[in-house]
């Protein structure tokens, strides 16, 4: 019986922690005036989890509060108070009522097929919850880095031990801190956070699709995304890739919407999420793509320039924060894995032209590790391209450009890597994980296409 009580307590604890993160994030969504409840709930976990993990380190760094339960509580309480005061100051009435009636009414409104698709999505999310709750971490990189440092931090209350242990500071600590939040409250079932990230991702993806598409197509798109083998696999793995993909693909979609529709709220959400994506994985190059959209958008939406500059500063601070913290640690040689120096070196590298012979091999490597994973979507894209051009679906045309640039970034990245590392073609797994970002964008393009806009799928 005691054992059962312990298990129930453990379940309650880990769920309460996630709930707290959602509450914090929800307040942010209210500050941003996000009225769509599904979007608001979806963004809540992404906002809340990254804000609290950043504050967790700020409290430790600036106020020397150990990385333990007190710090977590201080971060949560202070952020809730600040946001509540900001809401009062801005005289924003925010709704905290989640009446089951509201959601039941929406469910009653669905047709049989939509209900069936939603049931399958719920089943799949339930599967990730069960898999993450009942099974310990078994994935190599999580054992070697992400979860290991969480264990060390939860025991030591700081990261100093990492300087001695080595292979500790290579990535920002977002997911590790989410694990720490579980460990410091005596629960080992920390992998459950990935189900929350996965669910949040699906919810936001739905609301973004729903902007231009009927409900049925949007649900179908989410079903398609939720069942993608790579995305689903990562929803039950303690890696940073799913989190990164969730943040960055949503960023790119929000910012493209901003570029197209000039809605300031999209810009703000997109830029906050860019900052947060660099807190998950600072080394992956896709956030530059977000910056490129901002740069182009600046000329189109001149009224937003002051917002762009402010948010850009916040982004750079978040991007650099981890490096700044590392510089204060006793061992000055510790650095996160930055590729900026690599890019700079490339610019001044005279041997680049002599290595152009690598290109065929680079392209083959790109096909085997990137294209192969989206191969099943390619026949569909023939139809979407045809209809989008025919119907002049401008928004999707923007997404095509975004998608092609993403592919070019990956090819360029492989090429750059091939210049400097002899073992460049031996880490296909890593490349597959990195290029997962293009999957949600591709799926978004397919389901946001004009190919659906006919009487074939009549729906609300």
């Amino acid at each position: 019986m005691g054992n059962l009580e312990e298990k129930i307590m453990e379940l309650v604890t880990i769920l309460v922690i996630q709930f707290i993160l959602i509450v914090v994030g929800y307040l942010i969504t209210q500050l941003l005036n996000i009225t769509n409840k599904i979007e608001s709930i979806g963004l809540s976990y992404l906002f809340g989890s990254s804000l609290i993990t950043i504050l967790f380190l700020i409290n430790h760094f600036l106020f020397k509060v150990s990385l333990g339960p007190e710090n977590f509580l201080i971060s949560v309480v202070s952020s809730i108070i600040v946001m509540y005061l900001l809401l009062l100051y801005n005289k924003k009435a925010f709704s905290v009522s989640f009446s089951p009636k509201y959601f039941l009414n929406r469910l009653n409104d669905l047709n049989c097929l939509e209900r069936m698709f939603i049931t399958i999505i719920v089943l799949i999310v339930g599967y990730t919850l069960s898999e993450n709750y009942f099974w310990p971490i078994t994935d190599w990189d999580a054992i070697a880095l992400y979860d290991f440092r969480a264990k060390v931090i939860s025991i030591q209350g700081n990261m100093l031990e990492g300087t001695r242990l080595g292979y500790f500071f290579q990535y920002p600590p977002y997911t590790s801190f989410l694990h720490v939040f579980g460990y410091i409250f005596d629960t080992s079932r920390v992998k459950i956070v990935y189900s929350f990230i996965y669910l949040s991702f699906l919810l936001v993806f739905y609301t973004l699709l729903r902007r231009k598409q009927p409900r049925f197509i949007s649900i179908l798109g989410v079903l398609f995304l939720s069942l993608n083998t790579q995305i689903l696999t990562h929803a039950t793995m303690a890696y940073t890739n799913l989190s990164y993909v969730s943040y960055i693909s949503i960023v790119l979609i929000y910012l493209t919407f901003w570029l197209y529709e000039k809605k300031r709220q999209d810009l703000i959400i997109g830029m906050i999420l860019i900052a947060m994506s660099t807190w998950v994985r600072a080394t992956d190059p896709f956030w530059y793509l977000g910056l490129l959209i901002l740069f182009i958008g600046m000329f189109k939406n001149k009224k937003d320039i002051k917002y762009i500059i402010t948010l850009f500063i916040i982004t750079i601070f978040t991007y650099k924060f981890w490096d700044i913290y590392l510089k204060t640690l006793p061992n000055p040689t510790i650095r996160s894995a930055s590729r900026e120096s690599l890019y700079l070196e490339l610019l001044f590298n005279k041997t680049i032209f002599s290595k152009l012979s690598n290109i065929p091999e680079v392209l083959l490597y790109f096909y085997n590790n990137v294209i192969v994973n989206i191969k099943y979507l390619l026949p569909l894209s023939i139809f979407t391209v045809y209809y989008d051009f025919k119907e002049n679906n401008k928004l999707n045309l923007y997404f095509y450009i975004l998608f092609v640039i993403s592919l070019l970034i990956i090819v360029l990245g492989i090429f750059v890597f091939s210049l400097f590392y002899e073992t460049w073609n031996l880490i296909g797994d890593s490349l597959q994980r990195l290029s997962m970002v293009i999957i949600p964008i591709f799926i978004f393009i397919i389901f946001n296409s004009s190919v659906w806009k006919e009487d074939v799928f009549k729906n609300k």
Partner: protein
Amino acid sequence: MYLKINKSTSILLLLSLLLIAINSIVELLSSLSFESYIFLRSAVAVLIIFYLEKVKYKFKSYINIFLVLFIILFLFNFFLNIIDIYHLNNYKIISNICKSNNYLCELIPILFYKFKLFRFITLSSVFFSFPILIIIFSQSEFKKIDIIKSKKVKKVFIFLISAIIFSSIALGLQKVYLSTIQTLQVLNQNFDDRFTYKKGGTSYYGWIRVYSNFVINNTNEKSNILIPPQSDLYKMEGNKAYFRWFLYPRNLFHLGEYNMDEIDFFILSPGECNDGNCVWPDFEIEKEKIKEVITIDRESQEVFKVQSDNFNPEDYKNKWGLIKLY
């Protein structure tokens, strides 16, 4: 050229037969890659759903009976997978029943093997989920997506996307099915020890958990432990960044990284060498330095302690353990 509606019944029949053939032949002979045959089945299944709408025969009213039948078979298959059918005597209830009905208990295994019922257990969830999905989809709004009447180009698009979605759902449900079976097998196990099951058991990578528990039980938290070199031969126990997760806060070192006088333990590991005839440390250690050698049998997990002589690698080939130093 489209097929006329009055031919629908024969086409449907043909497609159904094709599906049954694919289900039976491919499932039993494994002649295609998993993803390919799932897609092939999905494509046929989608066509069946579309054509089923065109058929107006009495059997449609019996379709729910088929649905119930398949669900029952699916649940029965699931049930047989979660119980250990080959060791039923391990269950108290069954052993009690067998005491009073010995004849019955002997008859069941005979019938089980004679009629190859084990084939039923090995059927994948896809075998059942396909007919169930076809019936459910054919009764939903899915039938309103009129592939026959839609435009030429869209016809292909709708067919392709439906087949992909169908196969994705089947694969997703397969994951849920397997995960549920696995989860039910380990519910009574210690949370951390479930690692072993997930990583293929003690004869595979899951061994590292059991071995780590052995090391933890025989060392204290401040121990300095010398581990094998990092190589393919010692993938886990030789990889400091990996092995430390299991043993932290114990300190792990490779040879040459630390003052040998302060090392408390050596990991004793045969690694993964092909002839099964290796061991690390691959050098001799004088008996004056050794307090004891503790070994663990990989199969039985029995622990043996030896107040050692000189450590000679030849005597410890293919053995796992720890060398405790003075």
